[in-house]
């Protein structure tokens, strides 16, 4: 079952007088349980494509359908609700809310969705345990290492049970050990919860774990390979 369908999508930016095609006629689809990476050199359009899939940006032409929603038909306010309901984001710089504890960060989106408190707390506990931070409920981001913060960010993204997780260079700021731990956790969640992960990355460690590697060059898909890393 396709979670994401991308049909002949273009994204053009007009920087001063130069027209930049960040995404240049991409057609792709992602199915439930994918553990896919989008790779490519800087400026190849990885992040732009991720932003388009996540409904953070709109394509210039083409169509993106996520969980049955044609994103181009959604109003800006509907797009915000769409993101909250269907997409989990993991950012390169963690982007946790510094004034909240790890548990509060994880529960944040659930509270926006008005989950009952007991249910929210149970899910938070379950996820912090899953990312190996069961003992850091009350730690503020400033009291956590980079790897731990990124694990909290993953837990936050997973909390409201989205359709898929978009992770933009999630290991870029992490040391090897933290990166491996994080990837272990994401692989485990992918396996156990059948959560779809779509990464953009330069990191060979991520590519090594992926079961699908999509290569972009100048905004075009130049290869889309499936591997059998899980096995």
């Amino acid at each position, binding site marked *: 079952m396709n979670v994401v369908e991308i049909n002949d999508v273009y994204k053009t930016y007009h920087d001063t007088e130069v027209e930049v095609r960040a995404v240049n006629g991409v057609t792709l689809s992602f199915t439930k349980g994918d553990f896919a990476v989008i790779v490519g050199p800087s400026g190849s359009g990885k992040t732009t494509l991720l932003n388009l899939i996540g409904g*953070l940006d709109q394509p210039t032409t083409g169509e993106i359908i996520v969980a049955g929603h044609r994103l181009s038909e959604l109003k800006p306010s509907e797009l915000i*609700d769409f993101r909250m309901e269907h997409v989990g984001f993991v*950012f390169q710089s963690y982007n946790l809310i510094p004034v909240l504890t790890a548990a509060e960060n994880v529960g*944040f989106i659930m509270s926006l969705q008005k989950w009952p408190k007991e249910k929210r707390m149970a899910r938070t506990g379950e996820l912090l345990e899953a990312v190996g931070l069961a003992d850091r409920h009350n730690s503020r981001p400033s009291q956590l290492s980079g790897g731990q913060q990124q694990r909290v960010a993953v837990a936050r993204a997973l909390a409201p049970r989205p359709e898929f997780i978009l992770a933009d260079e999630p290991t870029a700021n992490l040391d090897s050990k933290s990166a491996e731990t994080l990837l272990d956790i994401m692989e485990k969640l992918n396996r156990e919860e059948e959560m779809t992960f779509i990464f953009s990355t330069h990191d060979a460690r991520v590519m090594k774990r992926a079961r699908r590697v999509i290569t972009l060059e100048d905004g075009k898909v130049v290869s889309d390979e499936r591997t059998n890393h899980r096995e």
Partner: protein
Amino acid sequence: MITSIAWKNVWRNRTRSLTVIAAVTVGVFASVFALAAINSSIVQRIDSAVNEELSHIQVNTKEFRSSSDILNIISEPDKVAETLRKTPGVTDVTGRIIVRGIASAPSGSAGVEITGIDIEKEKQMFTLSGKLIPGTGSYFGADTKLNSAFIGEKLARELQIIRYILTAESLTALVDKGVPSAVTDRLKPLEGQRFTTEKKLTEAYYRLLTPKEIKKYGLAIREAAWSYREGSRVILSFLDVNGNQTGAAYRICGIFRTNNDLFEATSVFVPMEELRRLTGLEDGVYHRFIARLEENDMTDRVTPVLKEALPGLEVMNWKEIQVDLAMIADYINQIYAIFMVLILAALSFGIVNTMLMAVLERTRELGMLSAVGMNRRRIFLMIMLESVFLSVVGGFTGMAVSGIVIGITNHTGINLVKYSEGLEAFGYSAHLYPTIGADFFIILTVLIVITGILSAVYPARKALQLNPVEALRGE
């Protein structure tokens, strides 16, 4: 959750938030305290006007205020008095006879309004008897004769019944009060000299003392030199009912001190019987009836009733007599609100600046919040709450400090004797007891919350204009 985040965000940059909160606190405190002081001055002025000078309602002929004719008497006075007494809200009524004349003493004379009063009734209806300066006699006490007069301090000064003399005893008393003997020694050249006014005494000791000593001991010196000649007499002359010049020597039975120089300078109170005898006005004839009401707030309600009941007479309440005071009393809350709006508007610039900095510093975070599904309404609400918290914490602290300081100064009073000459010329007391109604704090709370909300609009708009993709990319 939004409320909790907003509250925590306020304390992210403690120094900056505390600076804004301190600014709001100081601004609110300074303005509330200033308003409480002004309010007390007005309340005291109204209280003094109603209880010492005017009462609530006055009734006289329509020509009485503009004409000095002694025959401008109220016709059918018993009927008028009865109407007044029977009007709901009226608690007490008294009649007065009033003549314009001249008060003379060996050293001066002044134009005055001589009021013949029913002493016992006036004691019940006015507090003027309580304004007697100690040592100047009594308010028509038991031993008072018929030809006695109760006059104001200002008039007594003009007639030079009150003088300023530094005697050997008063200089010793000054030392006992803590004035250094080095200071009293330098005042010795003034010993025994008579000064007809306070100003002349002040000019004399200004030449002998340093500015610091004058500032510290000036009031004590003036009080020590204040001298009243007991048993002084004043000649009151006026016209009788036949238009003939008449008058008599009156012994001063007491001198009163109020906050109103004009009232003090022009008012002479004498027993009604004696004034009737001299003017030839018959018993039961009055120029004016004075009515006292249960509550000051009833004034506006009772006045039209009386105007309708007494169509041939001039019925005026204290607000109509002292229009300036009434205007201040009626519009005081609006004046306070305008004052506070201006102060809070000034403070809001600081809050806007702080919130704007907070928004610009958190561009990436706001981008993330928008990315993960926090809608525009919630982002606006979060920023607005942060701004409201800043205003409210500062505002409530300011109100709490004001409440404490007002409570203390209401008990101890604020002494503005240095400026008494100017204040009393306008009828305002030189001793303030700051006070402000609880309703003012309610209005202020609303204004502070509104300030917080309005201060958030511009920074929040800035936050809402952020594009999540660009915000996430930038720092």
